[in-house]
C-alpha cells in the first residue's frame, strides 16, 4: 500500500483552547435540551450538526486523516465542558469520539486510511466481548449483539470484541474489530435506566456481517492493550499518543463526564442558593447563610480537586507515552493501573460533592422530576454504578500485584472472564 497524501482538517488553525471554548459556548443550549435529550435517548440532529461544525468528533482523529490530533488533556477538557451542560450528551459524544485514539494506534495504515476516510469518523465501542466470528476466505463473518454501545446513534463505525472459534481445548481467542455502519444496525433499547437516559447507549447488532481481515486484530484486548512492542499508529503518525495504554483512558472518559456533570450541578446549586431562602431559622437567602456558604465552598473545592487530578492524570498519560518512545522505558501495566485509579478517585470526589453537599442540601424541591439537580444526580448515580468504578477495586489489587511482583501468571482480563461466565464457556 502506498502512503497517501495527508488530508487537511477543516480548520487547520483550530487550537485546543479554541475547541474547548466552543464547547463552553454551547453549554446553555445543552442545558436547555436536557429533557428532550432524555426523551429521545440521544441528542438531536441539530446538536450533532453543531458538534460536526465545531470539530469535536475530530479531536483525537490523526492529523494525517483530517483530524486535529489534540492531546488527551484537551479531549477531557472538551468532554468536561460538554458534560457541564448535559452529561448524557457528553457521554454520547465522548464515546463516539474517543475511540479514534485506539483505531489510530492499533490498526495498520491501510485499515486506518479506509476507516478514517477524510476524518469524518465516529466510533462507538464496548469492551465486553459478545457473539462469535467465523473465519472466511479473506476475513471474518460476525454475528453478535453488543449492549451499552454508547455513542451509537451518530456513529459511522463500531469497535468491539468477539470470539473466534476455539482452537482445541483452549478458550476461544479474542478478536478486536472495527466495522463500518453499513455492517451493523442499532436496536431501539436504551432509556430505561435510572440515569444517562440520553446517552445513546443502545445495542448494536451484527448479523452475518463480513469484516475484512485488516479490520480484525487477533488476541487484542481493547481496555488492557500491551503496547510494549510499539504500535502501528506511532510508526504511522509519529505521535507518542498513538502508542499509549488504555485502562486509564477508559476510566478517564467516565470520570471526565462525571466531573463535568458535577460542575453543572454546582452551577444549578448556585442559582438555587441565590433564589431561595433557608428552610429553618434564621430565614435568610441561602447565599447569605453560613451553612450554605460552607457547603458551596466544599463542593467547589472537591470538584476542582477532581478536575485537577483528572487533567494531571491526562498529562501523566501523555508523558508516559512520550517516555516510552523516546527512551524505550515501556508504558507499563502498573503505570496504567495507577492512572486508572487516579481517574476513579477523581470521579469519587465529584460524586462525594454531588451526594454530600449538592443534592442533600439543595432541598426536596430540587429532587422533583425534571429538575436539573434531579437529572444530574440520576446521571451521576448511573456513572457511579458503572462497571468502570467497580473495575477500580480490581485495579487497586492488580496494581498491588504488579508492584509487588506477584504477577506469576498472565494478567487477568476483566471483561474476558465476565463474558465467559455469562456465556457459560
Amino acid at each position, binding site marked *: 500500500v502506498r502512503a497517501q497524501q495527508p488530508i487537511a482538517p477543516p480548520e487547520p488553525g483550530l487550537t485546543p483552547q479554541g475547541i474547548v471554548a466552543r464547547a463552553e459556548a454551547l453549554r446553555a443550549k445543552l442545558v436547555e435540551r436536557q429533557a428532550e435529550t432524555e426523551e429521545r435517548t440521544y441528542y438531536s440532529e441539530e446538536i450533532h450538526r453543531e458538534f460536526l461544525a465545531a470539530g469535536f468528533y475530530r479531536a483525537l482523529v490523526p492529523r494525517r486523516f483530517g483530524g486535529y490530533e489534540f492531546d488527551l488533556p484537551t479531549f477531557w477538557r472538551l468532554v468536561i465542558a460538554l458534560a457541564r451542560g448535559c452529561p448524557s450528551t457528553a457521554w454520547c459524544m465522548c464515546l463516539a469520539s474517543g475511540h479514534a485514539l485506539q483505531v489510530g494506534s492499533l490498526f495498520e495504515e491501510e485499515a486506518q486510511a479506509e476507516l478514517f476516510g477524510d476524518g469524518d469518523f465516529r466510533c462507538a465501542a464496548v469492551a465486553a466481548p459478545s457473539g462469535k466470528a467465523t473465519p472466511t476466505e479473506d476475513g471474518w463473518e460476525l454475528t453478535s449483539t453488543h449492549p451499552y454501545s454508547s455513542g451509537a446513534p451518530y456513529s459511522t463505525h463500531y469497535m468491539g470484541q468477539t470470539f473466534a472459534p476455539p482452537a482445541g481445548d483452549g478458550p476461544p481467542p479474542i478478536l478486536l474489530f472495527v466495522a463500518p455502519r453499513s455492517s451493523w444496525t442499532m436496536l431501539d433499547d436504551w432509556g430505561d*435506566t435510572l440515569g444517562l437516559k440520553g446517552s445513546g447507549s443502545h445495542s448494536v447488532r451484527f448479523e452475518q456481517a463480513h469484516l475484512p481481515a485488516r479490520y480484525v486484530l487477533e488476541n487484542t484486548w481493547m481496555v488492557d492493550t500491551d503496547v510494549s512492542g510499539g504500535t502501528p499508529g506511532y510508526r504511522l503518525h509519529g505521535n507518542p499518543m498513538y502508542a499509549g495504554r488504555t485502562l486509564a483512558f477508559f476510566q478517564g472518559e467516565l470520570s471526565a463526564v462525571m466531573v463535568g456533570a458535577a460542575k453543572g450541578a454546582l452551577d444549578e446549586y448556585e442559582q438555587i442558593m441565590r433564589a431561595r431562602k433557608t428552610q429553618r431559622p*434564621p430565614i435568610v437567602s441561602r447565599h447569605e447563610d453560613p451553612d450554605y456558604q460552607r457547603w458551596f465552598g466544599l463542593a467547589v473545592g472537591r470538584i476542582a480537586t477532581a478536575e485537577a487530578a483528572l487533567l494531571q492524570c491526562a498529562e501523566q498519560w501523555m508523558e508516559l507515552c512520550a517516555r516510552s518512545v523516546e527512551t524505550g522505558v515501556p508504558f507499563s501495566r502498573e503505570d496504567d493501573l495507577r492512572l486508572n485509579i487516579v481517574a476513579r478517585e477523581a470521579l469519587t470526589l465529584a460524586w462525594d460533592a454531588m451526594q454530600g453537599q449538592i443534592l442533600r442540601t439543595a432541598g426536596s424541591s430540587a429532587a422533583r422530576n425534571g429538575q436539573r439537580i434531579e437529572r444530574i*444526580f440520576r446521571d451521576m*448515580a448511573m456513572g457511579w*454504578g458503572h462497571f468502570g468504578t467497580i473495575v477500580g477495586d480490581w485495579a487497586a489489587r492488580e496494581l498491588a500485584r504488579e508492584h509487588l511482583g506477584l504477577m506469576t501468571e498472565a494478567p487477568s482480563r*476483566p471483561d474476558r472472564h465476565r463474558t465467559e461466565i455469562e456465556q457459560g464457556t
Partner: protein
Amino acid sequence: VIAPPEPGLTAEEVIRRAEDLVPVLRARQAECEELGRLPDETVSDLIERGFYRVLQPRRFGGYELELPVFSRVAIELARGCPSTGWTYALVAGHAHMLSALFGEECQVDVYGEDGDVRMPGNLRFLAEAVPVDGGFRITGAWDYISGCDSATHLVLGAEVPALGSEGAREITCIADAKECTIVDNWDVLGMRGTGSKRVVADGVFVPAHRTVGSLFDPDFLLTAPGRRVHENPFFATGSFFNLLFSEITAVAVGTARGALDVYEEILSTRMTTLPPIVPMREHPDYHRFYGEAVQLLEVAQAAFLSADRDYMECARRAAEEGTHYDPELDQRQILQKQLCSKLADDAVELMVRTVGSSPMRTGETMQRYRRDMTMLCTHNGAQAELAAGRYGRLHFGVELAQ
C-alpha cells in the same frame, strides 16, 4: 373511654405483625409507586393490624405502647416498602401531636367514637384563617402532605389576619380531610408512593376547640393544653419535634434494611464481574462489603433505638420532677438520630456501588430503594450536620447571628 380493638395486643405481637408484612409490602412496591399512594389493601392492612394505634392513648382506643415499639414497626414497614414506612411513620407519629398539644375537647371530638384517626399535615402557615362564629374558615394550600389520600383529618398551619389593634397571629388547626381537596403534584425522584401531595382548603370550617397556637413556638409546646390531658409522661412532657426525627430515622434504617435484603439475594445468586470469577457470596471483597453494610446498619439501628429509650426516660424524669424535657438532651437525641439516618444512607451507598449496573434498571427493587433513600436524605429532617451545629450552639449558649 374508647376500648382498643384488641385490648390484649402486646408490643411483641405488633412488631411480629410488622415483620410478617415485609414480603407483602415488597411485592406491592411497584404498585404503590405507580399509584403514587398506598394501595387500598395496604391501608387496610395497617389499620387492621393496629399499627396506627401504637402510640395513640389508651383512653381514645389506642395501645399507648412505648416509642421504641413504634420505631420498630416503622422500620419493618419501610424495609418492605419505604414509601409505606414513610407514610405510616409520619401519620401515626402525629398521635403524639394530637394527644400532647391539643385540648381535651378537641381530642374527644377528633378521636370520635372509635379512635380511627390518621392525621397527616403541614404546620407551615400557608392559609388564611378568617374568624367566624364558633371558629375559623381556612383557605389555602399546603404541599408535601404525606398520606393525605388515606387521612381522616389534616393538621394545618394558618394565619389569622390582623384586625384592628390586634396583630396577625399564627394558629394550627385540625380539619376534616373530606372537606379538603387533593392536588396531585407529587412527581419526584423517590418515595413516589408516599403521595406527599398538595392539599387545598377553600373556606373549610374549623371549630375553635380544634385550634391551638403555633407549634413553632417553644413556650407553647411546653404549656400546650394537651399536656394536662394524659398522665403518661410521653404526652405530658415528651418533646414534640424530637419525634419527627424518630419517624424519619426509622424509615431510613428500614429502607437500608430492605436494600440489604435485596443485596443479600443478589450476592447469593450472581457471580463476580471481575477475576477471580466466583459466586459473589464466596468472594472476599463481597464478604467485606456485606459485613460493612451490616456494621453500618446495626450501629444505626442500635443507636437509634437507644435514643428512643432515652426519650422515654427523659420524659419520665421531667414528669416525676415536675420540670420540662431537658433541652440539651433533646438536641443530643436529635443529633444521634440524624447520624443514624446518615449511616443508613452510607450503607445503601456502599451496596449500590458494589452491586453492579443491572440492579439500577428501571423497575428493579434496588434502584427503588436507592431513589427512596436519596429522596429521604433531601428532607430537612435528615441533615446531621445542621443538628450538630444547633447542638453546639445550644451547648455553648450562643445564638446564631441573624
